[in-house]
């Protein structure tokens, strides 16, 4: 059986913590690996607040959490400016850092891709959706 809960906040950095709290409780309840799931969600929501809404508060951010015994799916939705086509695909895989050319930025999409098994993006009818999923070993626990 699949079960779904949707979490919604306004686009404010201070509210992202509430999403983390709720997600942490869900991971605990369902014995999911909380660390990579929280990273993926927080990075996706950070991007919505920062890029889709340009740091403007008061806009909606939704996180749909869908649990099936063998798969967790997260869908992060916004009504802001869509991500440029190809941007997600262009995000590099994790690689050894170059100490001489360390950038303080641009790890969000890369982290999301490394924490989840599938990552897709769709902009449609004014709603943008980043869909991520991760296979769960049956009985996988924290």
């Amino acid at each position, binding site marked *: 059986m699949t079960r779904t809960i949707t979490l919604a906040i306004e686009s404010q950095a201070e509210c*992202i913590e509430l999403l983390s709290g709720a997600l942490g409780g869900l991971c605990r309840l369902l014995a999911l690996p909380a660390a990579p799931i929280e990273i993926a969600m927080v990075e996706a929501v*950070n991007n919505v607040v920062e890029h889709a809404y340009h740091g403007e508060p008061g806009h909606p951010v939704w996180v749909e959490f869908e649990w099936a015994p063998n798969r967790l799916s997260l869908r992060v939705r916004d009504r802001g400016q869509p991500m440029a086509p190809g941007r997600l695909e262009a995000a590099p895989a994790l690689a050894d*850092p170059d100490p001489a050319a360390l950038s*303080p930025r641009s*790890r969000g999409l890369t*982290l999301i891709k490394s924490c989840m098994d599938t990552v897709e993006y769709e902009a449609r009818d004014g709603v943008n959706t980043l869909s991520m999923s991760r296979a769960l070993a049956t009985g996988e626990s924290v």
Partner: protein
Amino acid sequence: MILTHRIIEGIDIAALSGRLVMADAPQVRQKLLEIIEQGNGKLILNLAEVGFMDSSGLSVLVSAFKAARAKSGDLALLYLSPAVRSLIELTRLQQVFAIFDDEAAALARLR
């Protein structure tokens, strides 16, 4: 996010506690850059009490690292919490940052 700061033999020791995330990153970055600016560029950052960190938090560490190096100093990370350790290892930044589990060893490195 709580930041405490003390100085031992000219080496700055700052400890963070709480969640190092986008909401807190600008403030923490500024404080750390001030500490580096006013000191010798030798900073030990205690992360034992950082329960969660995202890429904004990582970028604060990178900024502090670069500022310290620019002053011919260095950044040492002390006591990584499990969440911080896993993020740093995921991004392979343990290849860049000096990481210690012992304050004396971190002090020795920066002395």
